[in-house]
């Protein structure tokens, strides 16, 4: 059973993830089962509970605003699939 509200095609578009029609169907069914399991959380009353984003008691971690050595430009570019003159090449964005 597919989850009633999960439109896999739409969500895949939001995630910029191309799926085949077979994948859409299969993931819809599998995620339906998983979402059914997740419904379990509705059994709990969490109205007075604060959310936990992460378990470490640290807030607003900053470091001194000082210039330190960083990755050289050419090292950062080395893995680029398409590059020229120290820049990444991408399809045309603005007409």
């Amino acid at each position, binding site marked *: 059973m597919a989850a009633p509200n999960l439109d896999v095609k739409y969500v895949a578009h939001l995630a910029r993830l*191309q799926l085949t029609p077979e994948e859409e169907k299969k993931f819809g069914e599998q995620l339906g089962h*998983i979402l059914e399991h*997740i419904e379990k959380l509705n059994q709990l009353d969490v109205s007075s*509970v604060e959310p936990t984003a992460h*378990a470490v008691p640290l807030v607003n971690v900053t470091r001194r605003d000082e210039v330190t050595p960083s990755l050289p430009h050419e090292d950062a570019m080395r893995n680029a699939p398409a590059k020229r003159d120290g820049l990444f090449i991408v*399809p045309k964005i603005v007409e």
Partner: protein
Amino acid sequence: MLNQLTISELTAKLAKREVSSRAATQACLDQIARVDGQVHAFLNHDAADALAQADAADKAIAAGATHAQQPLLGVPIAVKDVIAVKGQPLTCGSKILGKFISPYDATVTEKLRAAGAIVFGRLNMDEFAMGSSTENSAFGVTRNPWDTARIPGGSSGGSAAAVAADECIATLGSDTGGSVRQPAANCGCVGLKPTYGRVSRYGLVAFASSLDQIGPLTKDVRDAATMLKVISGHDQRDSTSLPEAVPDFSASLGHSIKGMKLGLPKEYMIGGLDPEVKLAVEAAVAQLTKLGAEIVEISLPHTDYAVATYYIIATAEASANLARFDGIRYGARVDGADPIELYSKTRGAGFGAEVKRRIILGTYVLSSGYHDAYYLRAQKVRTLIRQDFLKAFEQVDAIVAPTTPTAAFKIGEKSEDPLQLYLGDIFTLSCNLAGICGISVPCGFTKSPKLPIGLQLLGRPMGEATLLRVAHAYEQGTGWHQEKSPLARG
């Protein structure tokens, strides 16, 4: 058979100049050549580079360098393929990274090098650490050295199998929901997940940033203590790294556990737990009692909600983290008429099925209209799960539990049913949600076939010293960790 040694055994021999690091490294390379065709723990390794590092270590030892200064001097250590090692490939078990070469070292890599380790080899894993079997690697499954028809666990399956097959002395893995402890249990080695914030995540490719921790997989508890000491510590490049002092974990070993209180969660000993696993854990509890620990029944009432909570939070964070793999700045690219089409095609071609499933789920639970119902609610239940543990730790020094509900299953057995696979993570997930520490140590075997079983100990935030002390006391009273897998035996 130098590849069979533990860190403490090898460093003792190196210090006495009985053996060279080159010989130890060569023994590991020979073992890889002999058995890795059957295990497939390694995605790749650079033998010439490893031997060059070993020669440098031998030179340093000859010049007077000591293991007191450099605890891993001359010791071959391999790492999961999700941790950056400068100049080495980094795939995360995925096709989407293409021919990526790490431009820098992860903090843990720097620390291993500073400690004198021979850092070599990239270990197989579930793609982006998403899985419990290493079947989700884009580069083929890793096999369990105890029975090559079975999974080694995951996602750090390569890290566990390499240790169990004696292909190296120790390894690093990463643990987001059990990915160090579960494969350690399945392969019969020791696996430690440190407290969130104990070990820097800089240079660890992110899966779920609020849950990920790097941890060691070793042949015994003493080695886990040595490795943890080396990789721990505050790092300003990871804003979630804790500015806490790093204790000498090895110093906590060898002390009695008499009078310590250990909690047995009543929610962990029911439903779906294999009878042989249950027996082994009960025998381990009896052993701990014999050593003088007091066993107290405790309750972690929100255990039943952990899987649902985890698979919302982990997938939500993953969907955001994995947005960076878009074919623009690095990795493989599939061209498109416009950027959106380029992204979609690149990601559609580059990611495997499990990663796609989790991106879809994670995007969905964060999407407009569903965020509060799923993501925010899960974060609130996470608070309840964390409170369960903190409350339990007011009463006990550590918690005792199984690591996994069953021993290693057969390759292919669960790959068509993701939910069943997720439910197998029930005993390990909560530790990550709560941000506490945990360790898995061998506690016996199933009869036929003979497969390792893991005992899990869970400790307070920053409570690794206590955890290691209990694990070591238990280990010293048993011989489970000394049993060798058929492939290690040679």
